[in-house]
């Protein structure tokens, strides 16, 4: 058996590690910014790019795709080479991968700040960037599979199973959810509408959590935990069962983000039961992690890496138990749309992803610089600052979420809603303040880490190409003992890829296809008409400013919501919504029935200065909407795109659309004049974004109000029948 010499590529790992540190700080700063904006809205300084609706996607995208994304690549590039006993397949591809991904991040941040968004949460980036993501992902895939194929290990380790499943599933999710029709370089409309768009979006959104934030990090855990603890993996059997069960079941659970909405009842139920069945497979990962530490708990007290990993795994266990509980309809009725969800995801993000990333960084940087960590004490300080930060973050959010939900649902004995919406907001503002302190502490911890790692780098000397040796892979491997059946696939990465794809495709197919093909899932309501051209423009403004990040458009069938907002939402109301705008958080009130509720002048004044119309409101003001003009040159393209997507505009309407737009605009201008609003600084307000936005707001939820009572009732039953 000939021993071969080769070198591990540490340079790419180093680059990704630096990117993790940089984007981690940027993402957390953006998070702190939006946290403060919730009790001090004028932190936006009057600028559009720094307003909550645009900063929030910057925060989520930076943390998910920049911080955790680079963390995934850092961990995979380090562990994959060592698990395969070979250098990465191609240094050129590694470079393209690294710089491509960083360019995507920068482009993403810039476009989000300038208001270019597809309006779908966690998939906000516009179509050219979507294509770039797909291409870079393919580069990553070729590099990863190339490495696996030229490995010197006969079998692939459990960490690599998770990497493979991650790669194939993220590719599938990204492509299906990003199908959109471009109308300009940075503007497109989702291929799907309303209920279907919602289902695709949350199939994607939920599984982005599963296959971007969970499975790759489980892979990292399977490499770095046993290495750091120097203990064998507790149970190989558990690895097999929890891996396959996890990827198969996870994909079904998406609809639990849409409980009590207009999504067909059967799809909601599938979301519930698969979420519950997800507890054990998720906990399988936690158990395999924690039991691997058997006999090494004394090391946990000493070793900062292990401390971070243990808290990360514990947070993973808590979050994956809480998630299924939140998927029970009776719990979801309380938690959904509130800060409870925010607390839940931050246990996962700060605890699981954040702490695991920190642990890995503390492990690989001294290794790659051939030195020891500069200060274990500082790492300990980071650990405690971070832990206290998490606690101070999540407890106020749980409290706020539960309290606000209870206030929403409280009726007086006479049968009236006890609290106006605004009262429930001002009540939890102090909790928002405490939360931002928790977040700030966590960020301080991250800064301590950056300092500690810089010092470590300075005292060591970087090993760009780490020498290693291993025997060449023999053609025929004779097992030395009884083999598990699963060993078969561990020698065959391509089959592993195919079987993973099959496992994750089933759930999606069963849930998505009937929702698209079976008509009874979305009963039509004849009074629901396409938007007018001005309303379409207004809708684009609504999406651009990220209104959906604080306002839902989904009245759930609850007594309090019907009393507060109006008739509960029906599936048929959203058939022309490309994309859907149901939202997932109610920082402000629901807007599904806001049309006609207030006069035009109310909206005009409210967008200019929300506190003048709702004293105590935490909504920022939008002065630039009174300067921006609607791009009427785009109108024909918009109408054309909508017709392509199935909205029944008459042939040739695109050429008349702007006439209708002017007429409707004039109506609003006249109505504002009637209320003594004559323009901004003496200039006419025709053609300004605010007019289009008012037109859209006044339209939302109006169609069903004009429908004959019998019809809406019937369509309600149609939904029930499903």
């Amino acid at each position, binding site marked *: 058996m000939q021993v071969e010499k080769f070198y591990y590529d540490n340079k790419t790992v180093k680059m990704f590690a630096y990117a993790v540190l940089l984007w981690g700080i940027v993402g957390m700063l953006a998070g702190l910014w939006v946290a403060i904006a919730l009790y001090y809205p004028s932190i936006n300084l009057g600028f559009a790019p720094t307003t909550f609706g645009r900063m929030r996607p910057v925060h989520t995208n930076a943390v998910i795709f920049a911080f955790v994304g680079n963390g995934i690549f850092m961990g995979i590039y380090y562990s994959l080479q060592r698990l395969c006993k070979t250098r990465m397949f191609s240094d050129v591809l590694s470079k393209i991968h690294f710089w491509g991904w960083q360019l995507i991040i920068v482009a993403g941040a810039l476009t989000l700040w300038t208001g270019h968004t597809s309006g779908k949460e966690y998939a906000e980036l516009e179509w050219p960037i979507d294509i770039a993501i797909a291409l870079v992902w393919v580069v990553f895939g070729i590099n990863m599979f190339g490495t696996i194929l030229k490995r010197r290990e006969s079998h692939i380790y459990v960490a690599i199973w998770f990497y493979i499943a991650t790669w194939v599933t993220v590719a599938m999710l990204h492509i299906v959810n990003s199908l959109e029709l471009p109308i300009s370089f940075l503007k497109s409309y989702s291929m799907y509408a309303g209920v279907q768009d919602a289902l695709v979006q949350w199939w994607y959104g939920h599984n982005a959590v599963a296959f971007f934030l969970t499975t790759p990090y489980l892979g990292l855990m399977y490499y770095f935990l046993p290495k750091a603890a120097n203990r064998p993996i507790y149970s190989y059997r558990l690895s097999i069962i929890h891996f396959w069960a996890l990827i198969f079941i996870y994909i079904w659970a998406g609809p639990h983000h849409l409980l009590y909405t207009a999504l067909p009842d059967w799809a909601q139920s599938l979301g519930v*039961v698969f979420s519950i069945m997800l507890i054990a497979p998720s906990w399988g990962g936690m158990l395999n992690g924690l039991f691997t530490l058997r006999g090494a708990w004394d090391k946990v007290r000493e070793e900062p890496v292990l401390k971070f990993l243990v808290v990360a795994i514990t947070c993973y266990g808590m979050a994956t138990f809480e998630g299924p509980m939140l998927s029970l309809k009776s719990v979801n009725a309380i938690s959904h749309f509130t800060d409870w969800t925010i607390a839940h995801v931050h246990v996962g993000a700060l605890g699981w992803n954040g702490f695991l990333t920190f642990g890995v960084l503390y492990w690989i940087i001294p290794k790659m610089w051939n030195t020891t960590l500069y200060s274990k004490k500082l790492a300990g300080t980071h650990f405690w600052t971070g832990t206290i930060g998490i606690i101070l973050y999540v407890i106020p959010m749980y409290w706020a979420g539960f309290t606000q939900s209870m206030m929403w649902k409280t009726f007086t004995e006479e049968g009236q809603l006890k609290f106006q919406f605004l009262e429930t907001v001002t009540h939890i503002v102090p909790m928002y303040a405490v939360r931002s302190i928790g977040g700030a502490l966590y960020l301080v911890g991250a800064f301590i880490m950056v300092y500690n790692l810089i010092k470590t780098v300075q005292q060591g000397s970087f090993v760009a190409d780490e020498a290693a040796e291993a025997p060449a892979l023999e053609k025929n491997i004779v097992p030395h003992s009884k083999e598990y059946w699963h060993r078969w696939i561990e020698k065959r990465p391509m089959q592993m890829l195919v079987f993973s794809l099959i496992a994750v495709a089933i759930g999606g197919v069963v849930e998505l296809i009937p929702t698209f093909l079976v008509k009874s899932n979305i009963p039509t309501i004849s009074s629901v008409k396409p938007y007018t051209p001005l309303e379409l423009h207004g809708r684009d403004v609504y999406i651009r400013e990220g209104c959906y990040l604080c306002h839902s458009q989904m009245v759930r*069938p609850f007594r309090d919501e019907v009393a507060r907002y109006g008739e509960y939402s029906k599936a048929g109301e959203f058939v022309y919504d490309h994309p859907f705008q149901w939202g997932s958080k109610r920082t402000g009130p629901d807007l599904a029935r806001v049309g006609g509720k207030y006069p035009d002048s109310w909206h005009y004044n409210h967008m200019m200065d929300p506190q003048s119309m709702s004293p105590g409101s935490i909504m920022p003001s939008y002065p630039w909407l009174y300067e921006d003009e609607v791009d009427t040159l785009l109108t024909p393209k918009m109408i054309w795109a909508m017709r392509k997507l199935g909205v029944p505009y008459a042939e040739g309407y695109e050429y008349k659309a702007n006439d209708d737009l002017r007429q409707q605009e004039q109506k609003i201008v006249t109505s504002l004049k009637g209320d003594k609003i004559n323009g901004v600084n003496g200039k006419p307000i025709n053609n300004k974004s605010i007019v289009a936005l008012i037109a859209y707001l006044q339209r939302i939820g109006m169609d069903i109000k004009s429908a004959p009572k019998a019809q809406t009732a019937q369509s309600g039953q149609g939904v029930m029948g499903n």
Partner: protein
Amino acid sequence: MLLIANVFKKASKIALPLFLLFVTAVPAMAEGPTPPSSLSNPFVTLMVIIILFLAIIIFMMGRLVIGSGGLYLERWKKETEETKKNSAAPVVTTIVLLLLSVQVFAQDSTAPAPAAASASDNFGGISSTAYYLLCSVVFVELLLIAVLLYMLRVFAGIQKKKKAIVAATNTAAVKSAVPELSWWDRFNALKPIHQEVNIDLGHDYDGIRELDNKLPPWWLYGFFLTIIFAGVYLYSHYVSHTAMSGIEEYEASVKQADIEKTEYLKKSANNIDETTVKLLTADADIAAGKAVFQVSCFPCHGKNGEGIVGPNLTDDYWIHGGSIQDIFKTLKYGWADKGMKSWKDDFSPVQLAQIASYVKSLRGTNPANAKAAQGTLYTEAGSAAPAATDSTKTKKAS
């Protein structure tokens, strides 16, 4: 003797999952008859959680008892063969009897299940039968736990006695073959660390080895439980239709709320509607009405009722009538087509009367920037000429 033990072990392997299945089926069936979603009845929910929790405890304890019982059975058998002591026999019998009693109790606890099934059709709400059923399941479970605890103590006692004998006689041949395992290790089916070599699979990935530990039993059976839950959930929604859909839950809650509201209003001074409302003149009432007006009405009607988008409320022209009853009705039901929303879900009837009375008190105040008159002239029954000046402000009727 060994044969019996083996047979018993096999039987228990089947019996325990079965038992577990029944225990889970009982709450599932008991959940059926409660009207607004099984989980919305807090008592049922609590009991179901307790039942499930106890079931898991019983299951784990059962395993412990069987495990340790079986072990001692074999050991005692060996020892009796070696030492030919007669005293072993009664102990063995005790063990076997105790082990069998697990069976008996397991069967016992399954007994309520069919009863629940037959009863479930007849009860809406948490009837006394359902109540006693839930309680009896909990009681049986507690009884089982007590028995299992007793058995564990017996075995622990045997172990102690055994150790004492070993220590006393100092028989070198019989070194404790039974490893020292904590309850935690047993609970998770963990092998002692020094035995790890035996389950090392020989895998080596960059120095990472893998062990072939068994799946933690509670994890595995927990997984099965969630699958059973999924089955029961889907069955109750789409086959038996005992669980409600979201819309049905909504309708039930509104119906219930209406009943409670009517009951409350019957007994309350708040029972005012558009036919019985009277103009309030007390300062406190007018002030209360004004307070609400300043928060909720001003965006459309102006701080002083001068009218902005909504009509002027200080003149004698009314679109939907100007009597206290008319205004009350307008506030209560709204005129959605004209932009006036219904306020009945926001304010109580008394509050609505206060707001209406405040609005009436604005008559003739001639605020600045008053909007032009809209609607038709309204003349108060009993009053003479339309009000135009402040002097008529005090003229109030009915």
